[in-house]
């Protein structure tokens, strides 16, 4: 007698919603944006350039080069015709004035640097309008759980559960090169939790904290560069879920 086996529960169908729920619930990132706008900036004109630079003079951290690249790429891909000069190219072409130990720390220093005819000529040739200085980093703040893997002649596998929290803290300072004035400051704080459950195969459910901070910051910088000179000071929050605490406006140094 030929009997058809009764179909059992399909593990893929059962697992997919659980995995999706975990992805949606567990890997969200929260970004809090604080923004200060200084002297009203004129909207960037076609052909004018922006350079995004990382501050690297702090002893305890290094503003990541890939974050700077990400913000630069996001600005140039924003569809608003913003020409972005790559950081490395700019620093090499202006050597030795934009190294970690020699870069101008404020607009006044930039004005002093402009008294050097060779520097002034080179900067004007680039048709540079805005400097965007970014300081900060992304750190893992809390790690929990254990995950162990083993490999043997018969095969291998992992078992356990890991979770960690990442926090990004970045501040962008925007200088108007033509007016030699501070145009604004934008700070972005992003938090997110990542999980790696493992039953034989580890499944990383990662919160893209740095990428989220990059996107949020690039959007705000883009808005500031495109703004009409009417806004004075703005405080806002962008989040996948409600922020843990209310944001406060940055004060100008």
């Amino acid at each position, binding site marked *: 007698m030929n009997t058809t086996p009764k179909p059992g529960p399909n593990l893929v169908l059962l697992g997919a919603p659980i995995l999706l729920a975990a992805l949606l619930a567990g890997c969200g990132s929260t970004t809090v944006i604080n923004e200060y706008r200084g002297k009203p900036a004129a909207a960037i004109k076609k052909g004018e350039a922006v350079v995004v630079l990382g501050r690297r003079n702090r002893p305890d951290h290094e503003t990541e080069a890939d974050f700077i690249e990400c913000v630069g790429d996001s600005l140039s891909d924003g569809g608003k015709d913003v020409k972005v000069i790559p950081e490395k190219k700019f620093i090499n*072409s202006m050597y*030795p004035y934009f190294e970690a130990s020699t870069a101008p720390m404020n607009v006044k220093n930039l004005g002093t640097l402009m008294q050097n005819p060779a520097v002034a000529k080179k900067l004007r040739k680039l048709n540079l309008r805005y400097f965007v200085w970014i300081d900060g980093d992304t750190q893992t703040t809390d790690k929990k759980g254990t995950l162990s893997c083993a490999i043997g002649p018969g095969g291998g596998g992992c078992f356990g559960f890991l979770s960690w929290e990442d926090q990004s803290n970045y501040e962008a300072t925007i200088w108007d090169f033509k007016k030699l004035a501070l145009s604004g400051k934008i700070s972005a704080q992003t938090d997110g939790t990542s999980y790696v459950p493992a039953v034989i195969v580890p499944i990383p459910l990662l919160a893209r904290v740095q990428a989220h901070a990059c996107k949020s910051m690039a959007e705000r910088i883009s808005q500031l560069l495109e703004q009409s000179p009417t806004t004075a000071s703005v405080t806002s929050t962008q989040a996948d879920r409600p922020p843990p605490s209310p944001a406060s406006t940055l004060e100008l140094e």
Partner: protein
Amino acid sequence: MSVSGKRKHRQFHESLLTTAVVLLLAGCSSSLNLKVKTQIPTPVVTRMPLVMGVHFSDKFRNYVYQENSEDRQNWHLDNSASRLALFRQVLPSMFKEVRDVPGTKAPAGVHVDAIISPEVEDMQLALPKETYSDLYEAWIKYKIQLYRPDGKLIGEWPITGYGKAEKGFFTSRSKGLNTAIDQAMRDIGAKLSIGFPKQEVVQQWLASRTNEYHAEARP
């Protein structure tokens, strides 16, 4: 699965295990043999109207960072090529003309206004696990000596370069240290090219040259 298939399967797992063990052992080794590569851009500085001699002593040319301690077994870092490249790149941007001289005294018939001779004073390196940070760090200290063409020392001053590199997930120790040393070398080049005219000994020497010039020009 056939017998030959099972054998191949076992051989594959054994080779995988051997590779993993070799990689683990290599990762735990503390020895280091690194030939540092540095790229220094051409400085955007105003050239001083001077013919500068440059002398690289054998000690400077052949300096190699070596250490053999419990934590740093057989460390051997050679950045001699990048050290010379740094001065060959930076000095011609600073002066009207740069001439190599065989010592700290100009040979007869060779006109130079002064001679620069650098020396390596110190080099220190730090790994992330040593400083409990996420950074590879490098400190390099040079002594810049400035001589008159007759070999008399005008003055000397130290230049310290600092560089750091973030510890990425896939950043090897060699790559991290190379990046940190590269940054430190760039820092030295920056401080030399910007700082040379601001050095007190240089300003005093330039002032004395002007006075000598005016004294000679006087009838």
